[in-house]
Every structure is written in structure tokens, then in C-alpha cells.
């Protein structure tokens, strides 16, 4: 009996299509298809089922290298600096993280370092109220680095477990905004040595190949220590994490799957690779 249909070269077209449609990009698609074809030539793959299983294995292998949960116990306060392009889901993700840490019995503080966008401070204050968390803020238009400094100082003085800094969305191509972020990070470290302990990049799963250059640019400029992929409750697959995992090896901490503060799940390579196809 043959398990699944027997295969020829064209069976691999389906793999190529699935990977490209997932936003994995050409490069990793060619690498994975070639790896599977090699296995087929060596007789290790003999059916369509084998191909599917082989693909899942290859994908999981890559993603397991970036499956590394965030441990916030090493420092008090543990300072998380969030960043990312406009509309990626930073502010909402911060609320979800705060809920997670509060449920663990930790004390959490917010730093409202988006002093630019209309009603950004009001937005984080709504979340803070729902979570019964304080917000360190200054008036709209003030220096975000000054807020970061105040928030770090306050977290330290109050013995807060986790400080989460919200920042304004920014396109990685805007050098003045990238300089502003460097200053925010630097000033945080001035107030508390070693801070921020996590530089968390938030990326929207509906992005295409631009997610890769976003990640590279933010990483080169600031050193990204973790990522969150948001909006995976939609139909986009976020396949760009394959080339990012392979070339940048940045841990993917969490995945966002909705708009409420419970809609955050830890990144698991196996679950992700299953959902990819």
C-alpha cells in the first residue's frame, strides 16, 4: 500500500506555493524545497504525506532555534522597551503583557513614552485603569526619553517587578526617529544599569517581506532581544519569521491573537509550523 499519492517533481510546486503564500519569501522557500527534493532523491520521501511531514519538520527545526520564553525574574525592575512600526500592535501588546505578569502576582508599571501620537497616552491609560496599574507620563509633546527616565526611576524607587515602556510607532527608514529610540534606550540604561533588559520588537503578521528589513534595521540600530508577532488571529501566516529566525536568530517571545488582554500566547515552534500550512 502507498501512504498518500506517489510523487513527481510537480508535488513540490505545492510546497513552493504554500511557503510563498505564507510570506516566507523566495530565499527560504528555495532552500526548503531543495532540502525536501534532496530527501526525495535519497529515497527518504516517497509520498505527498511524507513531503508534508518533511516540510513541517524542516520548518520546526528552524523555528525551534528562536523558541525562547522571556524570563522577567532576573532583575527588579525588569525593564521592557517595546518598539515597532506604526500600528503594529505595541500598545495593545503591552496591556496583554501586563495582564500576564499581574496574573503571576507581579507588580507592573507603565511608561507612556509615546508623547507624539494623538491620544496615545489616553489609550494606555484606559488599559492601565482596566488592569489597576500606574502610568508614568508627561504631557503630549514632551521628550519621550525624559518619560523613560522618570518611569525607570519610579519603578526602581517603588520596587516594581516589571516596567513596560510604550513608544511611538516609527518607520525604520526615518533616521531621526531611530536616533530618538537610541536615546530612549540609552537614557533608560543611565538611570538603571542594564536596562532595558528586553528590547521587544512588535511586528504585524500581515506584513510581507518588509517585516524582514524592519527587524534587521531595528536590530542593527538598537539590538533587539525579543519579538512579538501580532494579529495572527487573521488569515496572514507570518511566514517571514522563517528567514528572520534563520539569519537573525532573535527569540520570538509571544504571538498576539486578538484585541483583548488575554489574547497573547507564548510562541511555540511546533504549533506555529502546524498553523503555517
Amino acid at each position: 500500500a502507498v501512504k498518500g499519492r506517489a510523487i513527481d517533481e510537480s508535488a513540490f510546486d505545492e510546497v513552493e506555493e504554500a511557503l510563498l503564500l505564507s510570506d516566507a519569501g523566495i530565499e527560504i522557500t528555495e532552500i526548503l524545497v531543495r532540502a525536501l527534493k534532496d530527501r526525495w532523491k535519497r529515497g527518504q520521501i516517497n509520498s505527498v504525506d511524507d513531503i508534508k511531514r518533511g516540510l513541517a519538520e524542516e520548518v520546526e527545526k528552524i523555528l525551534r532555534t528562536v523558541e525562547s520564553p522571556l524570563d522577567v525574574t532576573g532583575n527588579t525592575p525588569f525593564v521592557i522597551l517595546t518598539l515597532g512600526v506604526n500600528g503594529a500592535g505595541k500598545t495593545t501588546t503591552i496591556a496583554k503583557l501586563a495582564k500576564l505578569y499581574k496574573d503571576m502576582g507581579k507588580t507592573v508599571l507603565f511608561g507612556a513614552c509615546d508623547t507624539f501620537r494623538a491620544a496615545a497616552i489616553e489609550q494606555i491609560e484606559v488599559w492601565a485603569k482596566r488592569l489597576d496599574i500606574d502610568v508614568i507620563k508627561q504631557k503630549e509633546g514632551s521628550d519621550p526619553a525624559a518619560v523613560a527616565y522618570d518611569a525607570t526611576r519610579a519603578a526602581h524607587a517603588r520596587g516594581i517587578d516589571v516596567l513596560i515602556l510604550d513608544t511611538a510607532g516609527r518607520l525604520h527608514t526615518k533616521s531621526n526617529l531611530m536616533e530618538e529610540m537610541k536615546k530612549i534606550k540609552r537614557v533608560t540604561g543611565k538611570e538603571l544599569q542594564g536596562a532595558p533588559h528586553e528590547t521587544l520588537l512588535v511586528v504585524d503578521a500581515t506584513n510581507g517581506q518588509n517585516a524582514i528589513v524592519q527587524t534587521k534595521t531595528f536590530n542593527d540600530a538598537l539590538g533587539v532581544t525579543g519579538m512579538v508577532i501580532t494579529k495572527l488571529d487573521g488569515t496572514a501566516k507570518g511566514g517571514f519569521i522563517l528567514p528572520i529566525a534563520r539569519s537573525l536568530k532573535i527569540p520570538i517571545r509571544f504571538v498576539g491573537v486578538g484585541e483583548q488582554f488575554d489574547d497573547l500566547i507564548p510562541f511555540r515552534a511546533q504549533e506555529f509550523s502546524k498553523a503555517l500550512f
Partner: protein
Amino acid sequence: KLQERLEATFKKIRGHGKLTEDNIKDSLREVRIALLEADVNYKVAKDFLERVKEKAIGGEVLTSITPGQLFVRIVYDELCELLGKVNKPLDVSGSPPVSVMLVGLQGSGKTTTAGKLAIFLKKKGRRPLLVPSDVYRPAAIEQLTKIGSQINMPVFSSKGFDDPLKICVEAKAYAMKNGLDTLIVDTAGRLHIDEEMIQELIDQKRYLNPKETLLVLDAMTGQDAVNIAKTFDEKLNVDGIVLTKLDGDTRGGAAISIKAVTGKPIKFIGVGEKLDTLEPFHPERMASRILG
């Protein structure tokens, strides 16, 4: 650069040669790579390349132009054709108040675009009213209210309402009472697969009967652009697209995908966070950007 890569694939043809199915095979592959790298949808790219192939075969290569140049020209022209050669302006004709409704996925730039549209319409001599109908997102109403005050535009006070439909009813009455002729209705971001939220939009649209239903889409959107655009268009019958965040370095292939799959015109592009950053869509510029 694509043109250079194409020149390499055409090394074999010179001067009076013709483009044949055989000698353009490698060139088609190079264009396919460029399109996929630019986030053009896989299936859309496939169909597009078929049309390029038909157009290209038999093409005369003159001594004044290299085969690579001829081929790029064919691809570029086909892209411009697909993207819509003529800019379709915003239609706000009809007895006032006329409505423009902004819809789309979470975070695509609707609220900011509403502010930008208000400035655009004011310059055209209209008297817009910004209508916040996002009752879900924390401080969404405050956000549009602040935007309105930044640009000196009236914003309907939606605070305290919990029903977008009621907001539209009251806003329309307010506009009529105050001589405002164009309602710019900002809606909550939603997934195209959220049936309940899409139904809310259908109901809202039925009441408003907007002259323009604009799908606001992030230019960084990847392969999923076809699903998003197709669903919003099928459920709501979209009149036009606004492509935002084109001030970044995304190639914007989503523009091709959504145009191919819905046929609807891209009316504007967003090129910044400030409220004076809305521009009319230029197909030729987009075509060059996509080709890299």
C-alpha cells in the same frame, strides 16, 4: 537592479532579434522574483506574467534599445495598465450631507487618514464633519477628536455612544443642522473574517449610503492582501483604496494584488504620520517602485 539582471538574461539577443518564448523564459523568471520580493501575491504574479509573455513574444528589438530595455518597458507598461492608468478622483457629488466611510484591518491607518481626508476636502471647498464611530478601541474617539482640533475641523462628539449606527444617525442630523456637507466616518479596525463585525459595517453602510467606501490598507501588507481586499469588497462593495505608510521602504506589491483581485481604483496614498501627507495615487510611480 532588475534592468541589469534582465540585460544578463538577454545576452543572447542583439539588435534585430525578436523576443521569443524561449529567450524570454529567464527574463520572466527574473521579473517573477522581483514581483514576489515586492509582495505581489503569488497567484496574481503568475497571471500577470502570462499577460507579459503574450505581449512580449514577437516584440521587435530595435538597435536603439536593448532587449532588456524592451522587456522592462513591456512589464512596466503592463503594471501601469493594471494599476489603472487614470487617477479616479474622490466622488462627493450629490445632495449634502454626503458620506465617505473608511474601513479596514486593525492599525492600517484609518483614523489618521480620516484627518488627512478632512484637510483634502476642505481644500476642495467642502465643509467636512469627522465622525468617530469606533466604540471599541481604547481612546479611539479621543484620537479622532484630537486630530480634528489639530486641524481645526469639526468632530462629532461620539462620546457616550456605544452603537456606531446611532452615531451615524446623530452625526448626519448634526451635519444638516450645521451646514456641514461631507461626513468622514472613521470605523473600528476589524478582521475580514470576523462575520459579526463585518455585518456591523454592512448595517452601517446601508444606513449611511456613502458616496465612497474606502478600504484603508497598509502598504506593507504581504500575500494576505488578496484575502483582505477580496472579502471587504465582496461584503461591502468598496469604491476605492487608500494605501498607507508608503513613506517607508516597502515595495508595495499589495497594490497590484488588490487591484488585480477587486478591480477597484487606488485613490490615495498615505506618506506620513502628519495630517498633510495624503497624496493622489500615481500608477507610474507605483509601478517603478514595485519593480525596484
